[in-house]
């Protein structure tokens, strides 16, 4: 897994609540048997119409907004457990998703793919959403070690929570499989005594 420390980038303000995994990656694109290529179909039905024409209304298609940070409305990632949603977002180029609330399974899937879900207060979300909308060159700085998200040019900052185990995994580029394999003995003993 890729190591994650500090990300400084402009952001894309996707001001929609309850973005579900069917929007992030529609089911008809789940037929692949590897993890590649999902990025081009991220938010497919928002970015293109049925005939494949680009929808210029969609913020993701507006060239003034760029960056590896996605700012989204409350309750991001609800719905299916499909990890393809996380692959679509990383494939599209995102490293961080900022929202005021994430669905459980999505959050876990994101963390397992070096995609950092940052939960901030609704007030702070509103502030940065507006800032970025009005001024697309606004730079945000995410510092995982210190658990902070800041607007670079202004003294605007908030800290965020993250499970300490997951934080260590992200920073060291270490994943759950490595960890679980290191516990193999204890697992086998457990099986032997309990099951």
């Amino acid at each position, binding site marked *: 897994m890729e190591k994650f420390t500090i990300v400084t980038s402009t952001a894309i303000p996707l001001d929609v609540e309850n973005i579900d995994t*069917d929007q992030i990656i529609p089911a008809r694109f*789940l037929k692949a048997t*590897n993890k590649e290529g999902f990025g081009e179909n991220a938010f497919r039905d928002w970015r293109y119409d*049925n005939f494949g024409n680009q929808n210029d209304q969609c913020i993701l298609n507006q060239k003034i907004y760029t960056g590896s940070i996605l700012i989204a409305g409350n309750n991001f990632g609800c719905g299916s457990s499909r990890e393809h949603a996380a692959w679509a977002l990383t494939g599209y180029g995102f490293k961080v998703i900022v929202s005021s609330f994430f669905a459980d*399974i999505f959050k876990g899937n994101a963390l397992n793919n070096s995609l950092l879900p940052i939960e901030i207060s609704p007030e702070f979300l509103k502030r940065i959403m507006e800032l970025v909308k009005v001024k697309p060159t606004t730079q945000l700085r995410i510092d995982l070690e210190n658990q902070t998200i800041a607007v670079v040019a202004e003294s605007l900052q908030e800290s965020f929570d993250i499970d300490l*185990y*997951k934080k260590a995994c992200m920073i060291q580029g270490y994943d759950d*499989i490595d960890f679980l394999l290191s*516990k193999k003995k204890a697992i086998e003993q457990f*099986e032997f005594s309990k099951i």
Partner: protein
Amino acid sequence: MKKTLFDKVWDSHVVQSIQHGPDILYIDTHLIHEVTSPQAFNELEKRGIKIMRPDKIIATADHNTPTINQHLPIQDALSRRQLEQLADNCHKHGITLYELGHKYNGIVHVIAPELGITQPGTTLVCGDSHTSTHGAFGAIAFGIGTSQVAQVFASQCVLLAKPKSLRITINGNLHPGVLAKDVILYIISQLGTNAGTGYFCEFAGDVFKNMTMESRMTVCNMSIEMGARGGMIAPDETTYKYIEDRKFAPKGELYAEKVAYWKTLPTDKGALFDKEYYFDAAEIQPMLTYGTNPGMGIKINDTIPKKRDASFKKALKYMDFKAGECLLEKPINYVFIGSCTNSRIEDFRVAAQYIKGRQKASNVTAWLVPGSKQVEAQIHEEGLSRIFEDAGFQLRQPGCSACLAMNADKIPKNEYCVSTSNRNFEGRQGQGARTILASPLMAAATAIEGKIVDITKQLN
């Protein structure tokens, strides 16, 4: 210490707790299917890791399978490849696979209970969010992502912080025509789609005690739609009887031993929950959704509420409904009875009972998709297939079908579909399709009338 059902099952499966981190939770049963497993198999191969307990894995093909002509080669090349890869992977690793056409094939959450694989007091995972279905047996069952599928392959464990506990109690008697689907749609309409986030939910009270296992599965299936990781119902006589004599059920003395253990599982009197909600059964009516998440539901005679927020407006625009409008008398051209929420024999019996002697409206395309080969066989044995065919319904072959429209079963753009599935997200049943979630009884009535009708009037 007094413990909840959830505590008892969770605590007995913790291998180790990591300080300031998750628990290592041992998994008894791992279900897999063609869509969320290939990348996990690849990952293991890449790292040269062996599957730890292939004997604890059961595989089926369901998400991406055609529901007609299953005996013919699959037309869509990508879908075919996914199924071939599943078969290869299972073969290579010695995993039991009920592939397309097998007498035990079907939707993963329908086949495991009907084969007696799902049992009380166990932990069960699958790369699919509706794994919560199996909680109906008093199991801890939840959906996982593909990375976690790989973790379970490698270690038979998942890493998860223990969720908080929530209990929903409903006492009293349900009105005629109110089914399990209405109960869960009602709960979600009251609590919203993220009330359960971070929680495991127990359903308690008369209403759930009096339910059949199949109805309990419908309820637990949709607990994920209120954000909960899973739902659970305490095992009781109904549970034991359902499991007895099924293919993988414990037999003889072992069964008696298991039942004795299962009896220790229900929540202790006085055990504390982090959050509790109470509802009255008499309040519940047949339900319909009008929006683009399962929390946007109303009682059949109610009008769509008037709200101002942007996401509410966006949903109504997508559905082409107006605030304050009533859904009764809306013409409907598509009806889907199927999905892991409502594709068991009980659901088809309810539908058949209503349909018998009536004719489907000519404007309606009505798909009936059984949850498994066994359910399909039962539909034929009980003579329900005759009733459906005489009335003009299409009985198709088992699979997820129009629930997620990954195969060819798609609802056309801008069309409404009254569906017994579990998600009404934008485009879920096809690009631009508009889903109205309802019970199998409501769906059957809609197909007959060609529009939404007040089923309660007919029943009285």
